[in-house]
């Protein structure tokens, strides 16, 4: 169980070692990263197998034997383990296989892996900040390293927003620290009802939300998204849209559950989520470019996620997790399809004749994204709607009307695209369009395979709806269970508290 | 609702009609209708002549015309549908008159009621329209398009009147309505506004001046009749006599209490048909859109006010 720490340590080491090793043997350096990833996956699978009880009981690991609140700890429950697994798996899937890739990029990928794993596992606010910064630096550099001028510009913008975000976050953490004197999450959680249930706590939440929101594509701080996704390789875009944004979301949610019990915090998140949904979808409606369309759609989906998590109670948690997981697999798959389909939408005219399978996959994926039953996306959306309608607040009612409108807009632009793809040969629009500069390329087999497996996974979930829904319920209940977190980290406190209640 | 307590029921309604009862009526009713219709046509032409200070046709002129037309040696057909159109046009009216109760004979009036009747009355028009269509003469088609427009124009007030009457009597059975009127009071006294609107629509239904734009002899060469010769034309003459009869009997049944005996009945129907005839020779012709406009304005308005009183 303790070797879970290796998930952070090994990639970190690899990241620093790789440039060094590369000087002697390039091949070794290249394999080093991969082997670390494989080892990470093996570790997690091992942990999962060993401790079957993790479904019901989370585990806290004190690093270096120092117990929290003084020491730092990793908190391992289903959701964090799942994401910890997702990190190496997805990094592996979207690994820059290209032979010409510089070793620095591999190194940065390893850094990304390490920081992402750390971020999801940390049980400590300061560590979260540190890993977040690491993650941010890794991703700025990864964007910038793409080499293209547009990528550099995008990276700079990303950097600006990210650093402002970091400052905000640091500010928030500082406020929390001044208020409570601790940064351990479990400890904070114990103190929160007294110390943070006030205006300062709320303010710190707002700051942390804005800071983390930069990564999580939260509404006001997401204007980097389209440019970055548009200028980087599809692999990286898939990784960022699919994985990194979700990690940030999960961290925010965890903080929200543990530290900020105020309803205003939820409302703030709901407002920003709604704004994200509506602006993202609206702009995507006008997008003339496939990747840009996906980026804005991604913003919209993240808005949905925030809206879902802002619903108090388990229903919201379930809806949020469902959307997160669904988007986490679907969006990367879409980005993989985008590899062949860059450029103007008009480029894709009649593409269905050349690559029918890719278009079919595309349709399945967007159907699920839109929430068409019985595909998994529907159940997520269903939970969201039920959750929204169960709340009284006007903001949720607004959300309940905004989400369908957003979906209608989304279907309009996505199926407009599908229709373009199925255009007849010799269509006058296709022939005379000045926008067409590049002919669509064929997809890499790897990208198609990923998309196909995702589609297959979606269908498999449909066939196994019952177990999948059970799993979702247990995930949600564990994530939303504050007491379990506290009692896992501080077993003794829990018992004391229980006794005192009795 | 001023007559809810006096709920119209008819002893005929629940009784089963046997074919043996109906069979003689099936022969007699069209015959009566035909003969009365011929007389009405004669009256129409006579009144026209007298209004124009002419002598007018001899008594048997309608018969002469029909016999002559059927006696034509040669006649052209534009195809089977042309023939069938005439058959349906005549046959539809034959069916319609059996649905119209007259003194002593109810036909199958209680099997249909007034809604059915008003839709059966569309069958001849449709049949004729099909027949004319096959003539491949645009004059005919224009005529039919105008005739159907005219039907749209006068059917809306007509149907409002029918609704008002049926609501008033709480029944769609013509037999029931007539019985009620004979035992109580004529519809025209209970629903004067509806009766007035009904008279207006009657004018349109008869297809005479001022609403005869669809035949417009000088402009579209009598429209639907343009390619009709011999027995085809004769069929239309027969149909016209039925048309007069049906319109007047319907009106008499709805508002004038039908007829308890033959004398009264004939007096009523000839009186009813006389009014539109007089009107028709005093007015020039309306264009199609003006006809639609006038039909949708005055009778509809009057009938709606009438309904407001009845409801």
């Amino acid at each position: 169980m303790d070797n879970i720490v290796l998930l952070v340590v090994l990639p970190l080491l690899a990241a620093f070692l790789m440039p060094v090793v590369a000087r002697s043997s390039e091949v070794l350096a290249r394999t080093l990263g991969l082997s670390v990833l494989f080892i990470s996956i093996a570790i997690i699978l091992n942990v999962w197998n060993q401790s079957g009880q993790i479904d019901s009981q989370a585990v806290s690991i004190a690093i270096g034997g120092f117990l929290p609140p003084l020491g730092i700890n990793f908190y391992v429950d289903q959701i964090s383990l799942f994401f910890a697994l997702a990190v190496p798996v997805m990094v592996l899937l979207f690994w820059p296989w290209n032979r010409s890739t510089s070793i620095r990029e591999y190194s940065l990928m390893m850094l990304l892996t390490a920081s992402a794993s750390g971020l999801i596992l940390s049980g400590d606010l300061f560590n979260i900040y540190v890993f977040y910064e690491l993650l941010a630096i890794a991703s700025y550099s990864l964007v910038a390293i793409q080499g293209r001028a547009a990528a550099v510009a995008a990276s700079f913008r990303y950097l600006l927003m990210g650093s402002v975000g970091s400052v905000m976050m640091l500010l928030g953490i500082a406020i929390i620290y001044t208020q409570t004197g601790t940064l351990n999450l479990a400890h904070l959680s114990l103190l929160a009802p007294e110390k943070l249930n006030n205006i300062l706590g709320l303010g710190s939440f707002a700051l942390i939300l804005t800071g983390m929101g930069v990564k999580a594509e939260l509404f006001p701080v997401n204007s980097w998204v389209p440019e970055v996704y548009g200028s980087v390789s599809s692999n990286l875009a898939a990784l960022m849209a699919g994985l990194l944004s979700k990690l940030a979301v999960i961290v925010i949610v965890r903080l929200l559950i543990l530290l900020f019990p105020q309803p205003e915090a939820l409302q703030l998140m709901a407002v920003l989520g709604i704004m994200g949904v509506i602006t993202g979808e609206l702009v995507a409606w006008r997008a003339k470019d496939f990747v840009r369309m996906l980026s804005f759609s991604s913003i919209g989906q993240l808005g949905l996620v925030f809206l879902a998590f802002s619903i108090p109670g388990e229903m919201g948690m379930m809806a949020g997790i469902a959307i997160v997981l669904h988007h986490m697999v679907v969006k990367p798959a879409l980005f993989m399809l985008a590899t062949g389909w860059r450029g103007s939408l008009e480029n894709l005219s009649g593409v269905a004749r050349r690559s029918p399978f890719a278009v079919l996959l595309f349709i399945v994926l967007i159907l699920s994204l839109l929430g068409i039953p019985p595909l998994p996306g529907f159940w997520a959306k269903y939970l969201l709607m039920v959750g929204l309608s169960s709340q009284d607040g006007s903001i949720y009612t607004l959300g309940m009307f905004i989400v369908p409108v957003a979906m209608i807009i989304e279907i309009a632009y996505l199926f407009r695209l599908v229709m373009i793809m199925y255009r007849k040969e010799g269509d006058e629009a296709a022939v005379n369009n000045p926008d067409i500069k590049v002919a669509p390329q064929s997809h890499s087999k790897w990208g198609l395979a990923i998309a196909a497996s995702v589609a297959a996974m979606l269908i498999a979930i449909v066939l196994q709806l019952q177990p999948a829904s059970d799993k979702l319920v247990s995930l949600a209940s564990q994530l939303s269970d504050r007491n379990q977190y506290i009692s896992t980290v501080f077993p003794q406190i829990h018992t004391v508290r229980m006794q005192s209640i009795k | 609702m001023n007559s809810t307590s006096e709920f119209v029921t008819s002893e005929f309604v629940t009784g089963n009609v046997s074919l043996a009862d109906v069979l003689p009526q099936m022969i007699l009713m069209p015959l009566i209708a035909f003969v009365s219709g011929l007389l009405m046509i004669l009256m129409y032409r006579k009144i026209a002549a007298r209004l124009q200070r002419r002598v007018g046709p001899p008594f048997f002129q309608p018969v002469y015309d029909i016999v002559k037309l059927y006696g034509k040696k040669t006649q052209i057909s534009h195809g089977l549908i042309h023939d069938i159109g005439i058959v349906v046009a005549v046959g539809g009216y034959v069916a319609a008159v059996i649905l119209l109760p007259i003194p002593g004979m109810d036909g199958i009036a209680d099997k249909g009621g007034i809604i059915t009747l008003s839709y059966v009355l569309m069958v001849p028009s449709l049949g004729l329209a099909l027949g004319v269509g096959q003539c491949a003469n645009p004059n005919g088609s224009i005529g039919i398009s105008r005739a159907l427009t005219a039907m749209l124009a006068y059917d809306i007030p007509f149907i409002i009147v029918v609704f008002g009457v049926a609501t008033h009597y709480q029944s769609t059975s013509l037999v029931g309505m007539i019985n009620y009127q004979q035992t109580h009071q004529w519809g025209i006294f209970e629903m004067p506004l509806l009766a007035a609107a009904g008279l207006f629509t009657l004018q349109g239904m008869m297809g005479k001046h001022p609403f005869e734009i669809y035949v417009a002899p000088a402009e579209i060469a009598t429209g639907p009749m343009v390619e009709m010769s011999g027995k085809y034309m004769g069929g239309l003459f027969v149909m016209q006599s039925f048309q007069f009869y049906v319109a007047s009997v319907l009106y008499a049944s709805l508002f004038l209490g039908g007829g308890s005996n033959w004398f009264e009945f004939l007096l009523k129907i000839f009186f009813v048909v006389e009014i539109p005839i007089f009107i028709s020779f005093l007015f020039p012709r309306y264009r199609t859109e003006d006809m639609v406009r006038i039909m949708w304005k005055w009778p509809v308005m009057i009938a709606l006010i009438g309904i407001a009183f009845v409801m």
Partner: protein
Amino acid sequence: MTVLDDLLLFTALASVAIIALRRFASISKFSVVVYALATVLLIKMSALGYGGEPVYSSFTVNVLGQILQWRFDALSWFFALITLVSALLAAFFMSGAWGEKYCKEHSKEAYGLLQVALILNVLSMLVLLASGDLLSLFIGWELVSWASFMMMALNPDKLARKAAIKYIVYAMAGAMAFLMAIAMTYNMTGSLDYVQVMQGMAHLSNSQIALLVSLYVMGFGIKMGVIPFHLWQAAAYAETPGAGAVFMGAISARMGLYALLVVIVQIIGLTRVAAIEIPYTFLDMQNVLAWVGALTTIIPTYIALKQNDARHLLAWHGVGQGGYMLLGVMISDSIGTAGGIMHVFNHATYQAALFMTVTAVIYRTGTSNFSKLGGLVTQMPLTFMVMVVSIIGLAGIPPMNGFVSKWLIYRALLLDGQPLLFVAAVIGTLGTILSVYKLVHNTFLGQLRLEHQEVREAPLSMLIPMLGLAIIIFATGVMPGVVLDWVAAAQIAVGIAPVEHNLGGIELVQGGLDMIWVTGIMFYGFAVGAIIFYVLGGKSKHIHQYDNYAGGHFLTSKVRYHYSNHFYAGLMHMIGGWYRNVFIKLEHALVSLVSFMSQFSENFYRSSQPVMLVAVVVVLALYFVLGSSGGAEVSAGVSLGGFNQ
């Protein structure tokens, strides 16, 4: 395994098989067999049509605390019968010559896809009809929408693609309204099972019911194409490939009515709907819905009148006839609902037949444009006959079946004392008569064009289903009791008193209808007419179409002596100005609004000073936070403000 399991499983397997076999030539025959077998399975459940107990599926899914279940009751059975028979006839229709031509014109693949689309439509409709709770209803609903979309999208023309996109956006809007309604229902009643929801509904307030009804009706109404959501349907159905249009026109939009019957009539109950008063009017919600139905009969029918393409004309009528069904159901007495439900059957028969005839005409002549047709009756007499029978049904004139259902609706409106609705219904019927005459005249009557002189009758594979439908239209017109049996059972299933009927129609104290007598008398009349015509009149000679009165003009094949352009000119002088395309403008305005908002949002993402934006937003967020805390702890707020600088 119940029969329902068999049916669903069989259809599902058949869809898989058809998808797999779609490139083979024998697919058309195979699919006919499939639909025939499915129909047999359905007939095995025919006890349902006569008041039998509902048949449950043994297959359930437990997901997220919901038990999804499937069952068939009389209403489902009635709709399923129409679905399967339409599918069977459509499949038969496309199995022969039409299919070959379609393969030649498009491709074998396209034909296979059409078959796939058809079976998927049937499957999804069966799933929808079998749904036993709101969630499974929604799933079926969406499946139907997407299957329909697939069918529509098969036509690669630009117009068709546009129509399909429009459809799917509308359908999504409907589905979203439905989903919202389901979510609310769940939260209000705690369940989505029909029975429990029904019990839960009793405790809801009128305003809650009003909200639910509005949402549900919007969801279902979009599918039915009721005003103001009628814009998508006609173009979408008309542009569907021939045989597909037959099926779609017959039944697809009626799924909306099914859902409406289940949810509004059965679960919520029309008495609850009627109890909702609309403020500042004399109307209640039920009246409003009835008026929606009435307007739906009028407006699309008169739009149909202006069409110049047979397929579009028919499709617009499909929309209009949906209004009758809604109107009938909303009268809420046993006769009216019987009329509404029966009209589904009747409409399916004649609409399918009409689309088949038009498709046959297109098959032979290559066009359905009125200005390019005419005089085909001599070349395609049987097709003409089918069309005449069907248009008589569509126009609601005795003795065809359309009359019976419309009669029931009129009768119910009379009994209910609804003069304006009654007039509206009649205006719709009259408009129908006008436009069906335009249809039959401009395709089959009038002058035959030179290029159509060698046109032949539709091939047998297309004729057989057409003639079959014509027989059904007539037979159920003469003996409406056959259908009324099923309708009555369906009425019981949705909790309405069944209509009292006999084989010939309705017996009512205040004036009934006996179609056997009426038809008998009509045919007696025709016989008399025929005697007068054929026996008393002399011999006639059949002449050439150029031997025609033209004011002394000599007609030749060079002269087009035919009236099809601007058909109801006089009427259009009067009402032409009333066609203002209000709804189209409304739609455009909505799109423009979205476009405007989209541009507005785009500005945000284009902002060149993102950091400033972030700062502004943080300040705003803090302001929100402080504001929501009621202005307490001002000092803290000030200090935070200081930090921010």
